[in-house]
């Protein structure tokens, strides 16, 4: 029964995140970048876009997205594009502000959300011995981790830590 539910969920998810066509989702360029004819770095140029430009996401393939700008269609690296325009619904004009990365910084109003983990709540929090003990009771060993990885057929690979791009700290 559980399995069935999982399967259904899996299908839904692979529809969302797999290599299937997205229903021309709206996107926003996060940086200036070049469009390629094929989803490869050495493929021929098919155009370009600039930061903040609105575009349509047509397809995802591996680490590449096929996008359509006003002028051209081509492939671009996944992280050059942000999915969606601003935020769910009520801020139609916010896409550029968000894409520029300036919205949300410096102007967040201090809130006192009911369920929010706000600063006041964190400040007032008292040490909870029972909960920390419980959390520690779930602690696993490296061997446990390896067994879990094996069960999921996760194969560790060699991969050196990413370094900051030039010009960034």
């Amino acid at each position: 029964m559980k399995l069935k539910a999982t399967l259904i969920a899996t299908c839904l998810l692979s529809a969302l995140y797999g290599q299937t066509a997205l229903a021309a989702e709206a996107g926003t360029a996060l940086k200036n970048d070049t469009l390629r004819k094929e989803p490869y770095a050495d493929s021929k140029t098919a155009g370009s876009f600039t930061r903040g430009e609105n575009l349509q996401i047509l397809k995802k393939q591996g680490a590449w997205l096929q996008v359509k700008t006003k002028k051209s269609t081509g492939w671009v690296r996944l992280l050059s594009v942000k999915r969606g325009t601003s935020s769910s619904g009520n801020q139609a004009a916010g896409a550029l502000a968000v894409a520029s990365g300036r919205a949300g910084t410096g102007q967040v109003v201090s809130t006192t959300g009911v369920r929010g983990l706000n600063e006041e709540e964190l400040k007032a929090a008292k040490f909870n011995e029972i909960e920390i003990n419980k959390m520690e009771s779930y602690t696993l060993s490296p061997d446990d981790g390896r067994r879990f990885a094996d069960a999921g057929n996760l194969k560790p690979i060699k991969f050196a830590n990413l370094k900051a791009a030039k010009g960034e700290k």
Partner: protein
Amino acid sequence: MKSLMINTPRTYNRPNIKSSAKLLIPALLASALGLSSMPVMAFDLQGTLKGAIEKEMPATDTSQTQAPDSTANDNTAANKTSEPEINWKNPSKEEEIALGREIAGNLLGAAPLVKDETLQKYVNSVGRWVASQSERPDLPWHFGVIESEDINAFAAPGGYIMLTKGLYRKLTNEAQLAGVLGHEIGHIVKKHQLKVLQKQQLLNMGAGFLSDKYAKDNKLISKAIGTGAEISARSLDKSAEFEADRLGLSYAARAGYEPYGLPEVLQTIGQTNKNDNSVALLFKTHPHPDDRLVALGDAIGNRLDSIKDGKTLENRFYKLKN
């Protein structure tokens, strides 16, 4: 004052301390005291310390000019003994863990664990495996999902990592969870929070030494920090967040996961309305997700082009019951 010597951390005589021994002897006393009155001063952190330390953060060692004002409540809860003693100048792994435990325990005081053992075990499994790919596989890594609809995750020194139920809800596969946990693991590996606490603590010690009256009546100490959960509401350097993103992605990739898990989560978070309460703290304490995506994308370049078999494992991703 003298009797307090008993509480002086055992590492007090380490050679690297000698050079500044003059400063540190009173300072270490302050630290012992500071920690012993922790629960109370947690109430009084915000103004003085936070301001002071935020000013100090970018500089490496300017110290001492920001003496906190001594006026506010001085409810010395002096005789507590459960809090860890820390050699702030050069904390040992054990001290780091003790400090982290204190912070994590306070955070759990604000938001307890979600009562779902399967969930907690699952998150510990993923986290433990990812942590094993880090530079500190030997830490006793602990993971927990906490009862909050906020979207956030927290790391405390020594291997304590918590993410909110609200954030977990946004995830759709195990690779994304691995990326999120990897980010927090990166903070702990690089001791980002620990360094903030150290700076702040040493800063306050310095202030106390310079100004007799603080040292005398302990009022300084009621400002000192700080194993309260409030540290979790504080921002790290932007560069620390970008670094944790790079490390988180790297660890998840090494663990065999599809490496784009973390960027996918950043995409999702970036779509959340910034006025939504659930992201208020996250947005306040982190660079905007869009900036993080760009920085991460620039760091990735073509590094991931050859990784083909990364797993997302949505089929075993644990679904919340409610």
